[in-house]
């Protein structure tokens, strides 16, 4: 039987294990990914089973990690690199944006750089600064990169498989505060398209568009709203670049009211793009402007304030009410 109940971190571990087993060109690279198994234990046991040549503890240098992964990819490998925390990807941002994203185009399509950059992201774990950020829009804005994020164990397992198999660079954001949430993983299932959105809950009154760590919050909000007689649909975007706008449109036309929810700052966040597209595509179907719930235009605050900063049930429900009030 191939169905197991796994926490997200373990599902990613299994996914990496499967990829390492099935393709000798797959490599896992990063800081502390070896003996320690990563600071979140996502790579636990992999070095023991696949050796130091396949599961590589790198020097403490993110530009080096991504830059050498690009070189390895040019040589035919498929590196899956781990950035320890969201806030530490920026030393590598130059390599990702100026090199990784553009190489395929610059080489007239003659070279492929199938690098996966795994980044645990988002807040809610009470960490110090640089450990809680949601920089997905900074990557989604860059052509040449694909940006995805699972919200549950099954997606964590399958989307990572698909990201590794993709010939394009994929930024794989992992919702770190959900690492320990368990869910079913069927390792023999036929997975859906990596870039298709999924309706996580059907509803008729308002659509909540979310991804990664906020899907759970939105599902809880939908359950709470149900008690007040409101029927909320939750769309799990899964892919932030490209966005499955057809799915967004379908849901928007069905419920006529949309609230986009993410942890990242609202200003110029991915919600802005989604709201603009909905307006373009289904202006005449809407009963209310598309609303957004997310972070503020302020640095991610110290841990004792993150509950105020992160969109929680109340803020989502408040936006639902505002939408319904139009």
């Amino acid at each position, binding site marked *: 039987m191939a169905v197991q109940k796994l926490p997200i971190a373990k599902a990613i571990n299994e996914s990496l294990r499967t990829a390492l087993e099935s393709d000798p060109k797959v490599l896992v690279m990063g*800081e*502390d990914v*070896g*003996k*320690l*198994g990563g*600071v979140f234990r996502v790579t636990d046991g992999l070095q023991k089973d696949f050796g130091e040549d396949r599961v590589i*503890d*790198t*020097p*403490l*240098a*993110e*530009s*080096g990690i991504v830059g050498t992964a690009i070189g390895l990819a040019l040589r035919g490998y498929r590196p899956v690199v781990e950035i320890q925390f969201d*806030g*530490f990807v*920026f*030393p590598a941002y130059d390599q990702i944006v100026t090199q990784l994203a553009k190489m395929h185009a610059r080489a007239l399509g003659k070279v492929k750089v199938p690098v996966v950059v795994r980044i645990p992201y988002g807040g809610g774990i*009470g*960490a*110090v*600064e*640089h*450990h809680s950020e949601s920089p997905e829009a900074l990557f989604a804005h860059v052509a040449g990169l694909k940006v995805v994020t699972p919200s549950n164990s099954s997606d964590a397992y399958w989307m990572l498989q698909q990201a590794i198999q993709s010939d394009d660079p994929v930024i794989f954001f992992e919702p770190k505060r959900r690492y320990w949430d368990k869910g079913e993983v069927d390792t023999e299932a036929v997975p859906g398209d990596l870039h298709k959105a999924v309706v996580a809950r059907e509803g008729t009154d308002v659509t909540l568009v979310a991804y990664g760590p906020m899907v759970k919050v939105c599902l809880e909000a939908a359950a709470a709203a149900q008690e007040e007689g409101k029927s909320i649909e939750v769309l799990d975007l899964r892919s932030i670049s490209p966005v499955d706008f057809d799915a967004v449109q379908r849901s928007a036309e069905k419920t006529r009211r949309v609230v986009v929810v993410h942890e990242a700052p609202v*200003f110029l966040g991915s919600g802005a793009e989604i709201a603009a597209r909905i307006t373009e595509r289904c202006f005449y179907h809407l009963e209310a402007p598309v609303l957004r719930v997310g972070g*503020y*235009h*302020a*640095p991610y*605050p*110290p*841990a*004792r*304030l*993150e509950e*105020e*900063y992160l969109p929680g049930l109340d*803020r989502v429900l*408040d936006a639902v009410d505002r939408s319904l009030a139009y």
Partner: protein
Amino acid sequence: MTVDSADSTAAAQEAQPPRKRAAAKKSAKKSTGTTAAKGRPELVQLMTPEGKRVKNAAYDKYVTDITDDALRDLYRDMVMARRFDAEAVTLQRQGELGLWPSLLGQEAAQVGSGRATREDDYVFPTYREHGVAWCRGVDPTKLLGMFRGVNNGGWDPNSNNFQLYTIVIGSQALHATGYAMGVAKDGADSAVVAYFGDGASSQGDVAEAFTFSAVYNAPVVFFCQNNQWAISEPTEKQTRVPLYQRAQGYGFPGVRVDGNDVLAVLAVTRWALERARNGEGPTLVEAFTYRMGAHTTSDDPTKYRADEERASWEAKDPILRLRTYLEAQTDTDEGFFAELDAEAEALGKRVRDAVRAMPDPDHMAIFENVYADGHALVDEERAQFAAYQASFAEEGA
């Protein structure tokens, strides 16, 4: 006399009177050409792990003023730093702090270097420099705010010339270099110290800091605490040459000092700071030491390192070493140690009380100090946030 670059540079410097910065600028090229050690890395040591004072022709002259009283002061600093650190670890275990990076084992490296700095020098720390902060006169309770999660810094860097802790590895090496470039432009004779770890030495920022500091002959001391580990990765995963030898490739001297020997660290750092003040440019000091605890309270070192390793370093404990010396070679009596214990306990209590009394920040703090000149979007979001918060108060009423 050792053959490593630092010694030869120190010796060369001894032959010349201290130069004014302007004069040194002209001769900068000449003064930075040094040779690194060949073969076995030398370790500057003035006191053995058994607490025996050893002679060192190049560095003894930097600590001739260190009387028994001054040694007791250094001892006190190390004991206080360790006591403070232990209290923070306990507070983390009790849930009062979210995280704590312990300095256990690195007291000599921090106190020796911290005490070598002058008031007008400027220090750029990473996140573990609690002992340096102590020496700079920063109230230790201020260090705890960011680890408790009530702020992202917590002190005014200019009040003690001690910059905020830097969590992104190696970034501050460039800030220190730039600050030092400014010091040189101003014609001042202050020096700057950048702290970082052996792991951080792999970062591009650190390499770039080395380049800039050498090119602009910046008065900066790179103080690398090689505590043997970068979380789970040993130093061999960062470098294949002894770290201090890297400096040679950039054109400035590097020296490895026994980081558990507070006197040697003091001497070597004073030498490096003097070079900076004299306009002779940057120096890399590698303090060879050991992180006796976990990387942080979130880390589990049993996953990657053997207990025997720690045991072997415990024999080199920096505090024990100086205590053995003080007891055997000076007239330090039991009373001194007993008083110090009491003082350390009082510090522990003060820290404990201060942390427990530390209030959570006001919600509106999210929007404070985002910009120096203000910003319309922040104003708008602040107002929306305030209205939203107020709606709960109304509901509650």
